[in-house]
């Protein structure tokens, strides 16, 4: 056989959703840092991403990696207008909670906490999932993210009405849609190409 997977011990597998730092272990061999060409470096966008096994594995297809990275950055980091960062991260964390991506949830719950200063509410969402009561505005965002995460997609006019009733305008709603949809992409990569570990350095 030309290729086969790398199997890891389950000893350090996380079993609950957490805001602590986790590591991630790839099931296929990432490219080595020494192998990276200019095309790979361009695809990584930020050179620091070469330290991550996840991004060096995705670098096996640099065209889609670069387009994906630039999509990601604009959805989450373009704060010229639209939904506050904290609530974009909440949509990402809620999507990850529902799909079951412990690694993605840990990163984006942490970001949601940092930007909102509502660490306890974020933890309640991680502990209780989509039913957690986080106040009307966050409940509306989590419910919209959950509806967008269902297959078939359950997002409907009622979700728009709820988002508008708690003060989101159309541009804010586009940020919720983008954020939840993007994490349906990210979760499936992280869940299907490797696994989380409680060893944060990995």
């Amino acid at each position, binding site marked *: *056989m*030309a*290729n*086969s*997977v*790398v199997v*890891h011990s389950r000893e350090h*597998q*996380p*079993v*609950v*959703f957490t805001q602590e730092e986790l590591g991630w272990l790839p*099931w*296929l*061999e990432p490219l080595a840092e020494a192998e990276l060409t200019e095309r790979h470096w361009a695809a990584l966008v930020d050179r620091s991403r070469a330290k991550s096994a996840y991004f060096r*594995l995705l670098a*096996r*297809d640099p*065209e*889609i990696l*670069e*387009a*994906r990275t*630039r*999509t990601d950055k*604009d959805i989450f980091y*373009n704060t010229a207008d*639209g939904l506050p960062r904290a609530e974009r991260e909440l949509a990402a964390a809620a999507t990850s909670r*529902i*799909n*079951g*991506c412990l690694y993605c949830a840990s990163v984006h719950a942490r970001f949601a906490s940092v930007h909102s200063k509502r660490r306890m509410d974020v933890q309640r969402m991680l502990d209780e*999932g989509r039913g957690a009561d986080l106040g009307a505005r966050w409940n509306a965002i989590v419910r919209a993210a959950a509806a*967008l*995460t*269902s*297959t*078939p*997609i359950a*997002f*409907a*006019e009622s979700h728009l009405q709820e988002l508008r009733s708690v003060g989101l305008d*159309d*541009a804010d709603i*586009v*940020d919720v*849609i*983008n954020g*939840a*949809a*993007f994490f*349906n*992409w990210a*979760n*499936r*990569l992280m*869940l*299907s*190409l490797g*696994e989380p570990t409680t060893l944060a350095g990995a």
Partner: protein
Amino acid sequence: MDVINLLAGIEPGSGLDGIRSRRLQARDHAQKSYLALFEPADFGDFAAADRYALAAFVAAIHREPAASSFYFLKLAEVEDRPHWLAALKAEIERAETEGPYGAFPAGPLSAEDKAGLIYQVANENRRVVGGGLAAALEHAHLLIFHPRDATSAAVQALCEAGWSSDAIVTLSQLVAFLSFQIRTAAGLKILGLSLGRQTSDTAAAGEGAERNHG
């Protein structure tokens, strides 16, 4: 042609098109992602027909008719054997279910484990579409409906069906990207319909006011 706008029914120059353009990088790179996966300069060892067949399958099991028609048209450009297309359509019917479901790591979260369909391509259809695409359809179903059940064994099954590490990364990106593209279009379509109703309500109210003045 921006594929998300096409699937969501967003007209160039409309209000929603204007809102989308506030995230110009995201919009342009969502489109570039589509091009990288479906119109690459080099398809490598992941053939165009397999990419379009997977996309048609993924869109159809989301039960999103616009996306499904779009990718079936792409597929028809490169694959027109009726028995082959019939096998794919038969598999779509066999694959339909509702997600996300699956098991969490054993522990406190096990209370939330939810059982669901573990999809396998039927033998008679596997013979028609080939072992490589059949393995990819099974993997796509896992990722779409129960991604938290993904294991290294699922990746190993792809290796054994002849998928290279590079092609497995592209396959994962393709299925995961479609989850994004289809959701973005579905969400924007609902928003666009709602804005359209608001616009026509406003216009109707305006006409009514004019008549009152007249």
